[in-house]
């Protein structure tokens, strides 16, 4: 599976026609320069549907620095019942992520809006590295686990906005991710949710682990537009409180409003030892030179693991596997010993000329340093790594993500 990156909404306007200070209140007890904070605020939003789109437009009106939008889905006519989506977009069925990013950019031309119209699991590991907050607005458990895991590793605060339409409940959960052993969204999973997550994962029988496919829930969000908007606005308000440090610091908590009783409640979130997620905090190191030109040895020096025993260290370039042995259709084995992308062929068999494929038993998603000990002097490009934005290195229980000098590649969008 190759990891993919964000695309930018192409627009040259850089100044908002109406500055935000014409409506932004002087918040009580504000100790920061609100405009400076908002001018530097970057947020990643996963899910641009009934809740996510409302959240995005609320943040766009604050004219923040950057919005990254992720959603694999498309708008449909029914979207008009829960979203504030342009009717033409609902009729034409455009990609949610692209249209949401364009709407945000129209509201705030000064905001850098980028989008990814695919599953969040396909994004580079470093995709959210330079955002201040990630917001989750999807009911897809697999996406929830993936985002929760990424934010935990990178130490990025995570806000989840959700609704329960039948009971008029709007809910927001906030994980500060300040400590690696703090709570994440998966810490509160019960056995039913765990089974649900496992049941939703579909695998290609012959493709190995990289070819898994998460079944996207077919059931639409059954809720009124008002409840969805309420969850989004609660989330936007909590975002503002967190970013501007309004009131007491935001703790790991769940805030819920119930329309049946007109009551709201706040409950703390707690870490669970049975959590599905790996609560390891990654150290982030920026490579001084492009990753493709960096050797494995230089990578280890960058991470500071160079002095550790080789069997304690493993290396995983994002979206690549290391294949020691390939096998052809005739069953001949051949040494390969290089990185590449899963599912592709690895050249031709020297004995019969047929295509070689990675032997699953001899392929590593995370290769031990002992297996590449004699290749440490070679650049990643020479070893078959192309277009990766990050390399994860582990040493025992510690992990370091080495990223490109310029982390997020941004291309231009297709109108």
């Amino acid at each position, binding site marked *: 599976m190759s990891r993919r990156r964000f695309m930018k909404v192409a627009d040259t306007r850089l100044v908002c026609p109406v500055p935000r200070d014409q409506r932004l209140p002087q918040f009580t007890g504000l100790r920061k320069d609100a405009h400076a904070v908002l001018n530097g605020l970057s947020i990643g939003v996963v899910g641009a549907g009934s809740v996510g789109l409302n959240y995005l437009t609320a943040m766009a009106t604050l004219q923040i620095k950057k919005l990254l939008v992720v959603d694999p889905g498309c708008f449909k006519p029914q979207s008009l019942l829960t979203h504030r989506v342009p009717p033409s977009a609902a009729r034409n069925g455009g990609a949610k992520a692209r249209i949401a990013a364009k709407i945000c950019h129209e509201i705030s031309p000064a905001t850098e809006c980028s989008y990814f119209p695919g599953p969040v699991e396909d994004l580079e590991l470093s995709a959210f590295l330079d955002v201040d907050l990630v917001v989750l607005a999807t009911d897809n458990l697999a996406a929830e686990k993936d985002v929760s895991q990424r934010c935990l590793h990178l130490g990025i605060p995570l806000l989840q906005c959700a609704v329960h339409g039948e009971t008029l409940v709007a809910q927001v959960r906030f994980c500060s991710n300040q400590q690696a052993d703090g709570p994440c969204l998966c810490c509160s999973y019960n056995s039913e949710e765990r089974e649900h997550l496992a049941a939703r994962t579909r695998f290609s029988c012959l493709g190995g682990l990289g070819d898994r496919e998460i079944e996207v829930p077919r059931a639409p969000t059954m809720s009124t537009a008002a409840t969805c908007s309420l969850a989004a606005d609660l989330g936007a308000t909590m975002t503002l409180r967190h970013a501007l440090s309004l009131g007491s610091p935001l703790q790991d908590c769940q805030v819920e409003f119930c329309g049946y009783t007109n009551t709201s409640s706040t409950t703390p979130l707690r870490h669970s030892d049975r959590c599905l997620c790996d609560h390891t905090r990654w150290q982030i190191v920026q490579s001084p030179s492009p990753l493709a030109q960096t050797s494995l040895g230089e990578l280890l020096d960058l991470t500071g693991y160079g002095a550790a025993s080789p*069997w304690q260290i*493993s290396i995983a370039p994002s979206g690549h596997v290391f294949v020691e042995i390939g096998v052809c259709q005739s069953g001949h084995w051949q040494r390969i010993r290089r990185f590449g992308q899963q599912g592709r062929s690895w050249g031709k068999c020297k004995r019969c000329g047929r295509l070689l494929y990675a032997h699953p038993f001899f392929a590593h998603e995370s290769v031990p340093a002992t297996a590449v000990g004699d290749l440490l002097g070679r650049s990643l490009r020479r070893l078959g790594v192309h277009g990766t934005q990050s390399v994860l290195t582990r040493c025992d229980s510690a992990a370091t993500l080495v990223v490109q000098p310029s982390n997020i590649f941004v291309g231009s969008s297709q109108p």
Partner: protein
Amino acid sequence: MKVMEMNKRMSGDGLAAHGLGGLSHVVLNRRYQQLLKKAMRCCGGPSPWQCRKQGEAHDLLALAQVCGRLDVKEIDMKGSFRAIVVMEAPVMLRPDHTGQCRLAEYAILGILYHEEAVSAALPGAAFVSVLAPNDLWYANVGSLDKGQPLCLGLTLPAAIPVKEIVLMAWGALTMQTVMIDERDSAGVLNADAARWWQDNLQRIPLTGEPFIRRQVDRRGD
């Protein structure tokens, strides 16, 4: 001597009384002790994963020692848990050009256990590759260019122990457990073999022998 007595207690009926959970009490013979020691010297990853791999390695070696039809050749615990084992079992090969069945007497299995398998259900074809012989004739064994993966089910539960995977592999190779409906996308990796076996149901299973032999295996002592 003590090792032999312990293994005698833990083999055959002894193991049946204790169940597979009793494997952790088996004292390994000298060869397997050395194999385990060598693998543990290069055991990598976070501490909980290292402990898990060491436990799995011991249980696999103990199972091999008491069952009498398994020989562990290599264990690698640097990253994922990998083991190469020889399993004495009748193994069906692709019929020759005259349509005659061919049986091999053993299979070399590559057992691969990812760290992720501890916390997530993984596909049934992700754990065992048949490294030899080639040309296996089973509905649930993939083609040579895919590394002959042995499918043990749609998904296997999270944290499934390696010893259970070995028993499932025994059941699949001897066809004591079968899946030959070619219309069922779950588990059929060779539709031709599935159809052939539907016409040759009388050959199933390839053996009725239990996995645990009654005699104690004393190889290496």
